[in-house]
């Protein structure tokens, strides 16, 4: 397809949605805002599946849209390749379900149109970051998504939420500064900002001193955005403080897009991956995996417990990708998809409990299964997924990661991954025991199950959790394989993009 314009829709649709809802949201009835946001989310989901189909049928590994007709490296280009389409499906799938959920959930807050404005702005930032082929553009989209998320964390404007948001905003801005300096160094060295062109120029220069320096800057910056362990302090405060649908969005896709995707795109496709970077990623992954899960064990606040588990699961993703073997990268990316599904489901469950009984403390709840069967059953499915119990999707991705560790001879990391999985299981058994099983407390006699929209989205995500493992079947495995191939190709990314741009 010549100049595939549909790539721009991933940025245009959410930006248009954000600004139109901001403008007219005050003057029209709530129902129209609800319908408009669901339709926009559905369109995004449709186009992300469409992008997968188009990419599969096209002969080239990448498709490039030249903005304004300027051929890269002179203009900004938007690139759609296997990894981008994989991330687009992940982000927009989760965003669609969360949007449906928010229709009911956000009723208890006062200003729903403002919420959807910020939600779509964040979505525009994430989608833009995924499709862009220009390094500075990546920074701009990263900041759009970050600023929207700082505002969303403080959405309730209670004391704790403001405090968490301030902490998150300061740390996030410092991280952005590091990323900006890294981009400045790369620009100073290569005199180009196009990611493909930069990769081409860097591959012609051998052994330059600037590369490790830039890599460390990016590791700090994106590591903070991804909440890897030495940089994780903001996450357990920020994610629980946001409204539940936003916690799901932040934990489910934001840390993956801003942190994992941006980091692996730059490390694998631009800087060119070496063993040192890989071992650094693996070490940080293993450290996050085990530290965060131990910290999670002692938590009594349900959302804070889930937030610590987000850090731990990010550790799994980095451990898998850091192995650098095809199997390891497959496991890491598959776990990325699975984690975004089940972690957003878990956060939506915690929001449903909060909606019904107005507390997040595990010790306060008991026996909710009798009154809230949908929440309890979907939570059971998500808990078993995150703990890695067959046949749910989390089991397969963790199994692949552990097998890949053994295959490459890292037995220590494999043992850490197994121990982390066991601790995850124990911590989610605690959730099940305290929240859903046992006697129903007297004061909760009259609680009701949550409204239909919330039940629908939770059920939808639970179904994906159950059947997620089927993505490894050979008929649909191309979806994961095309993403893995982009990373394995490394700097050949440059060639693919530059060729596709000229067509």
């Amino acid at each position, binding site marked *: 397809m010549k100049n595939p314009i549909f790539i721009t829709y991933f940025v245009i649709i959410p930006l248009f949605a954000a600004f139109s809802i901001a403008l007219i949201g005050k003057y029209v009835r709530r129902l129209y805002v609800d319908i408009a946001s669901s339709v926009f989310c559905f369109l995004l989901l449709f186009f992300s599946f469409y992008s997968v189909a188009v990419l599969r049928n096209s002969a080239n590994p990448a498709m490039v849209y030249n903005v304004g007709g300027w051929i890269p490296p002179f203009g900004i280009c938007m690139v759609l390749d296997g990894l981008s389409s994989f991330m687009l499906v992940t982000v927009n799938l989760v965003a669609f379900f969360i949007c449906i959920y928010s229709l009911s959930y956000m009723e208890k807050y006062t200003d729903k149109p403002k919420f959807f404005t910020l939600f779509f702005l964040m979505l525009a930032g994430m989608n833009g970051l995924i499709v862009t082929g220009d390094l*500075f553009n990546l920074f*701009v989209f990263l*900041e759009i998504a970050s*600023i929207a998320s*700082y*505002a969303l964390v*403080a959405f309730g*404007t*209670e*004391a*704790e939420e*403001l*405090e*968490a*948001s*301030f*902490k998150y*905003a*300061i740390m996030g*801005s*410092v991280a952005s*500064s590091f990323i*900006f*300096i890294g981009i*400045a160094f790369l*620009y*100073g060295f290569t*005199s180009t*900002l196009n990611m493909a062109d930069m990769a081409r120029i860097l591959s012609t220069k051998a052994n330059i001193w600037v590369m490790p320096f830039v890599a460390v800057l990016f590791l700090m910056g994106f590591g903070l955005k991804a909440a890897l362990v030495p940089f994780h302090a903001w996450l*357990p*405060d920020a994610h629980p*403080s946001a409204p539940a649908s936003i916690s799901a969005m932040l934990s489910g896709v934001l840390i993956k897009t801003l942190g994992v995707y941006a980091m692996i795109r730059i490390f694998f496709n631009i800087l060119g991956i070496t063993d040192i970077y890989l071992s650094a990623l693996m070490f940080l992954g293993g450290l996050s995996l085990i530290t965060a899960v131990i910290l999670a064990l*002692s*938590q009594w*606040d349900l959302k*804070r417990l889930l937030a610590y588990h987000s850090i731990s699961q990010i550790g799994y993703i980095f451990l898998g990708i850091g192995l650098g073997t095809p199997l390891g990268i497959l496991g890491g990316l598959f776990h990325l998809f699975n984690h975004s599904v089940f972690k957003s489901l878990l956060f939506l469950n915690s929001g449903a409990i909060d909606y019904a009984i107005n507390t997040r403390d595990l010790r306060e709840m008991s026996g909710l299964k009798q009154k809230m069967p949908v929440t309890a059953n979907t939570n059971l499915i998500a808990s078993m997924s995150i703990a890695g119990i067959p046949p749910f999707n989390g089991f397969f991705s963790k199994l692949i990661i552990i097998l890949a560790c053994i295959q490459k001879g890292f037995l220590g990391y494999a043992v850490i991954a197994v121990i982390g999985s066991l601790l995850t299981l124990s911590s989610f058994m605690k959730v099940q025991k305290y929240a859903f099983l046992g006697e129903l407390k007297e004061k909760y006699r009259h609680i009701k199950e949550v409204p239909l929209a919330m039940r629908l989205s939770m059920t939808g995500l639970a179904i994906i959790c159950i059947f997620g493992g089927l993505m490894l079947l050979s008929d649909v495995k191309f979806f994961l394989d095309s993403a893995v191939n982009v990373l394995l190709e490394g700097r050949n990314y440059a060639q693919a993009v530059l060729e596709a741009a000229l067509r």
Partner: protein
Amino acid sequence: MTLYFLCLILFCIGLYGVLRKRNLVKIIVGLGIIEYSMNLFFVLLGYKMHGRAPIDAQNQDILNMVDPIPQALVLTSIVIGLGVTALLISIAIRIYDKYGTFDITKIKRLKG
């Protein structure tokens, strides 16, 4: 080279402000200093001694011009910095309403 070192020093001053100061407003000022230092650094990357603006004029040979791209990028970055600063200040004002203080050692309801 001296100019780059001055940028680094400015960056470190900003980082010191963010890390060591206890007042919310001073932290925001520190963040502002960090942003200025990196903008300055980026502009310096494209600067040449005695260079001129890259504007094409009639009957003139442009021999020594500065790189215009960092200037364009820094403009974007300044706008982003403005957005972040505005958001941070509004959050700081709301925090003052809730807690009655700007001192971060007294603002610690979140823990664990």
